[in-house]
Structure formats: structure tokens, C-alpha cells
């Protein structure tokens, strides 16, 4: 299980853009094609239609995948400059490759309420693939999943919880932020109060929107020791793209 996220850009030769993203036991490959001609029924006179397809690791997609698709689609529509491409289609296919195993629960194809932990991986893979496809975007996005686990009367936040943590978690939260530090997506379930949600928001903000300046190095180090699993998603996104650009421009 990877604690540190890993990503590769442009893994598929045929697609306009693609990315593979692995984090916390999930691996997702995303491909982006677009802007391409839209079908008549999907055509929108003023903006591009964003079509998201989520394919599960095994079996065919069901109601759960439709739900994930609608979440991802509504978020990506906010990021992509859809008004630049009227009557066009931007198609994003997200293939889930691996999901973390849990020896303690029955593995069933159809699982209730196991939707959330995969949302950050899906969103992150989609954003990377969109960058790879050079689709104009208003902002990028970073996402993280935080669980509130109660142990011996005290509540503690678990970033990127394992399936076993999720099983025992009181509440699970997925938050995504744009690169302008705006809250793009907030999905929570379980049992919590406004105060707990605030704490989760702080933790997620720290992971997703850490300032990239090196001046705050000391603070960052302190934070890291506090929640060891919390990685800096924005820095990760930037360094991944930087590495790809550097590799592509090596011949110069």
C-alpha cells in the first residue's frame, strides 16, 4: 500500500491525455479525449459536455459507479473552461485498477457506503489526465479523505484511512479544494457535529492547500510529525507535472 502518492503522466499512447495515479491502495488510470464532437443529445449550445465514465476493478459498473461519475463530473465541470468549447465533448474514462483489500470483511462486488475513499484517487487521476491532455482549466484540484476514528473515548483523525479504519470510523469525509483554496467538493457520512467537521476541514485544507513556499519549512516539518500520513497534495501535483515537462524537454 502506497502512503506517498505516485503518478505517471501520458501512459496511454492513443488517448489525448492520460495518467495513472496510485495512492493509499487505490490505483486509477484515467484517459481524456477532447474536445471532440458531441453526440446530438449531449450537445450544449454554450458549453462543452463533460462525460465521465468510471469503470470498476471487476465487473460492470452499477449504481455506485453512476454516483461516483456524477460527483466527479460536477466537480470537473467547474474546473474545465467548458465555455471555451461550445457543442463539444470532453470524455474522461477512469479505470479503477486496484482497491485495497480488507481481510476482515466479506468482499462483495456491490458495497454500500464504500464509495468515498476512492473519490480523491479518481479526481486526482482525472485532473492529471486533463493536464496531460492540455485541456484548458480554470484551476486544478486536490482532494483528500479523512476519517474520524474514536479510540478509547478519544477521537482522532486518520488521513487516508485503511479499509479496517473505515469499518470502525465514526465518520468519513472527502474534501476537494481548487488551487485557489476554494472548497470544491465536500462529501461526508457517518455521525459527526459541526465542530468535528471543522477539525476535518482544517486537516484536509492542510493536506490539499499547503502553501508551496519553502519559507514555511519549519511549520511544515512540525505538521508532518503531527499527522504523518498527510502528504502535500498540491506540491505533489506540481512536482509530477514538472518532472514530466523536464523529461519531455530533455532533448533541448
Amino acid at each position, binding site marked *: 500500500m502506497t502512503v506517498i502518492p505516485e503518478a505517471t503522466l501520458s501512459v496511454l499512447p492513443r488517448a489525448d491525455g492520460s495518467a495513472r495515479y496510485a495512492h493509499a491502495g487505490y490505483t486509477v488510470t484515467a484517459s481524456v479525449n477532447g474536445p471532440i464532437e458531441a453526440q446530438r443529445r449531449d450537445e450544449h449550445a*454554450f*458549453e462543452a459536455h463533460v462525460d465521465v465514465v468510471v469503470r470498476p476493478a471487476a465487473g460492470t459498473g*452499477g*449504481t*455506485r459507479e*453512476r*454516483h461516483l*461519475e*456524477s*460527483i466527479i463530473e*460536477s*466537480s470537473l*465541470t*467547474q*474546473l*474545465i*473552461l*467548458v*465555455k*471555451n468549447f461550445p457543442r463539444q465533448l470532453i470524455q474522461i474514462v477512469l479505470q479503477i485498477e486496484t482497491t485495497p483489500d480488507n481481510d*476482515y*470483511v*466479506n468482499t*462483495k462486488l*456491490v*458495497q*454500500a*457506503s464504500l*464509495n468515498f475513499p476512492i473519490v480523491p484517487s479518481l479526481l486526482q487521476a482525472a485532473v492529471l489526465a486533463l493536464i496531460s491532455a492540455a485541456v484548458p482549466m*480554470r484551476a486544478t484540484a486536490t482532494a483528500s479523505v479523512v476519517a474520524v476514528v474514536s479510540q478509547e473515548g478519544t477521537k482522532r483523525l486518520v488521513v487516508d484511512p485503511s479499509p479496517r479504519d473505515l*469499518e*470502525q*470510523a*465514526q465518520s468519513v*469525509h472527502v474534501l476537494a479544494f*481548487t488551487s*485557489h483554496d*476554494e*472548497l*470544491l*467538493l*465536500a*462529501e*461526508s*457520512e*457517518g*455521525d*459527526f*457535529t*459541526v465542530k468535528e*467537521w*471543522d477539525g476535518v*476541514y482544517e486537516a484536509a485544507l492542510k493536506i490539499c492547500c499547503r502553501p508551496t513556499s519553502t519559507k514555511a519549512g519549519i511549520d511544515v516539518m512540525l505538521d508532518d510529525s503531527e499527522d504523518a500520513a498527510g502528504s502535500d497534495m498540491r506540491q505533489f501535483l506540481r512536482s509530477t507535472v514538472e518532472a514530466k515537462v523536464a523529461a519531455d524537454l530533455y532533448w533541448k
Partner: protein
Amino acid sequence: MAAPSLSFSRPVFAKLSPHPYLLRTLAPQPPSDAAASRTNGRAPQEARPVHIHTSSLSHAHGSALVRTGDTTVICGVRGEVLPVANIPQYRPQATQQQQDDGDERADERGGLGRGELKDYDLLVPNIELATGCAPQFLPGVPPTTLAQTLSTRVYSLLHSCRVVDPKSLRIWYTPPTEVGNNMDTEEQQRQQEEADDGDDGPQLVAYWVLYIDLLFVSLDGNPFDAAWAAVMAALRDTKLPAVRWDPDRQAAVLQNNSQPTTTTATAAAAVPGQGKNSIKTTPLPVAGLPVACTAAVFPEKKHGGESMAASAAATVGNRHWILLDPDRSEETLCGETITMVVDCSSGGGGGETRIKSIEKQGGVVLGRELIRGFAGVAEKRWKEVRDAMQ
């Protein structure tokens, strides 16, 4: 140079350009003294009143009809008996032996108790958006994305809120301790085997599976709130017939006091309305009362995803309104929505509000402060729905 004046009646204006029409009613121009309201006459934070009618379906174990404005949804709950022998991958749990204290520990951990409901699919919600409930639903097409999304949301919320206790869905069988005096060798042998297995105590032989079916009779926006209210009202109305396990027939039979003839539960359950008085029923315990509250964000600028230049130039004119309980025409104009599920029932209303779910997507307007403030709106809505349920 007198240009012909183009003036439309209100419905024509609304049809031709819905966005400016709603914007104009929400933000009236200075000369007019009309109060800011939505096109449907409601204030931005005003929800439609809820009407709930329960037990209207005679052939379901519990049912409810919920109406908010022109959104009408009917929900029926039916229990079916599922013998454990028919469950693939059935894993007998430690809870069977110590059914009292063991269960509580398991529930505290949040592990096994929920695992049963999930693993054996004891709650099966399904949502159908009937043809003609809204103009966009055509006959003879597969379930729309909306229907699939709604049923996933209801399904996962049912599990995460733990409204139904798996304990109340278990059917137990206590083997008789007294054995007849003419016990033959075969029976003795069986007794021996049972003793070896340690099955002297009550055994878990079957589960009730609750089929929760929702049908939208008409849809005028905000389907999730109505659907969830209907599910809760129907579950609170559910009365499962008292059954006992018949080991010879390997089936559950009704505990019927007045008539000695036993019918299999499944057969009798098909007509729960028939002779309702004679069948003993137990109401299904439902924990808490989570209520969903949805709002949509109406942006001043048309087509939410504005370009960089536009957003920089027009930050002043970038107002937005949070419209509670949006109707269908408002939903088409709003990109960003928030659904918050709250439960204020714990602690007699005086306790802290428990949030069961937040779903916010499709925009960046609702930040931390607005979501925090929305909890208060959801609490108000909770009181309205609670009053409607009683």
C-alpha cells in the same frame, strides 16, 4: 424613432430566458418595490411544507406518501424472510452464542452489527422515477442516472445512519430441550451432534430482508429530501409479523393466535392486509430521525464556469443566492447543490445536532462558513419534518 415595445407576459419570459427571469425576481430593480422572492413566490430560505401520510398501501408492511409542493413520492416497505441457509458466504458470528452482551460490544465497535446488514443485503432500496412524473422521463428507457444516483445515496445513507438495528431483523429458533420419551437412536444421534456443536441455545435461523421501494408519482425538484423523508416515514410505520421457525419445514411460519393453521410467512406476507387484526405484528424499531435538507446555489452569472477574465472583472456583480428546497426549474439553473442530513432527536432536542451526511458538489461558492451556517437551516427543516411525521 419609436421602437415597437417588446413586452412579454410572465410565463413567456420565464420560458424564454429562465435565468434572467429568476434573477430579476430575486434582485428586483430599484424602481419596483417588490420584495425579493423566487419565481415560485417563496423566499430564498423558505422550503415547501411537507405532508406525510402513512399506511396508505394495504399490501406493504409499512408505507408512506410524502408530498412537498408538487414532488410526490410513495414508499413501501416489505419484509421477506431469508433463511440463513440461502445466504451465500454466510458466516455464523460469535454474536449467536452470546446474543446479548456480545452484540452490544460489536455494535459499539461498529463492526459486526453493520456488517450483517451490509454483507447479506438486508436493506434493499430501489427508486423508480415513474414515466410522466416530470417531462424528461420517457417510457421504456433504462433507469436514468438520477434514479441510480438517488438509490445509491439512499442505500449508503441507510447504512451509515444505522436507522435499522440488525437485531430486530434476526429470526431466532430455540430447539426444544424436552425430547419425547420414545426417542429412537437416530434422534439420539442427532441430539448428540447438536450437543457437540454447542447449539443448545437459540440459533439464528433467518433474517428479515426489507425491500424499500420508492416511486416518484410527480417530481418537481428536490427528489432526495422527499425520498429520504418517505423512507424514514415508511420505516417508522413498518410492522413486521411475528413469526416462529418451523424446523420441519425449514421455513418461518406466522405466530397466529386466533387461527391455528400455519401459513408460511412468505405466503402470508403477500397479503398482510388480509385479517390484519388476527396477525400479531411487532413494530420495527427505528433509531433516530435523520432529515435531509437540500439547497441549490443560484449564481448571478449564467453558466457557472466563467473564464478567468470574467471572474476577475465581475467580482462585484458575482452575487449568489442559496435557494432552499429548489423546484425543477430552479434546479436546471443551479449548478452547485448541498444536501445536509441532520438528526436533532438525540438528547430530547436539547442535545447537540448530529450531522449524518453532507454532500456538496458542483461549485465553489459554498465555503466553510456557509456550510456551517447551513447546519442551522437544516435544523429548522428538521423540526418541520418532525412535526409532519407526528
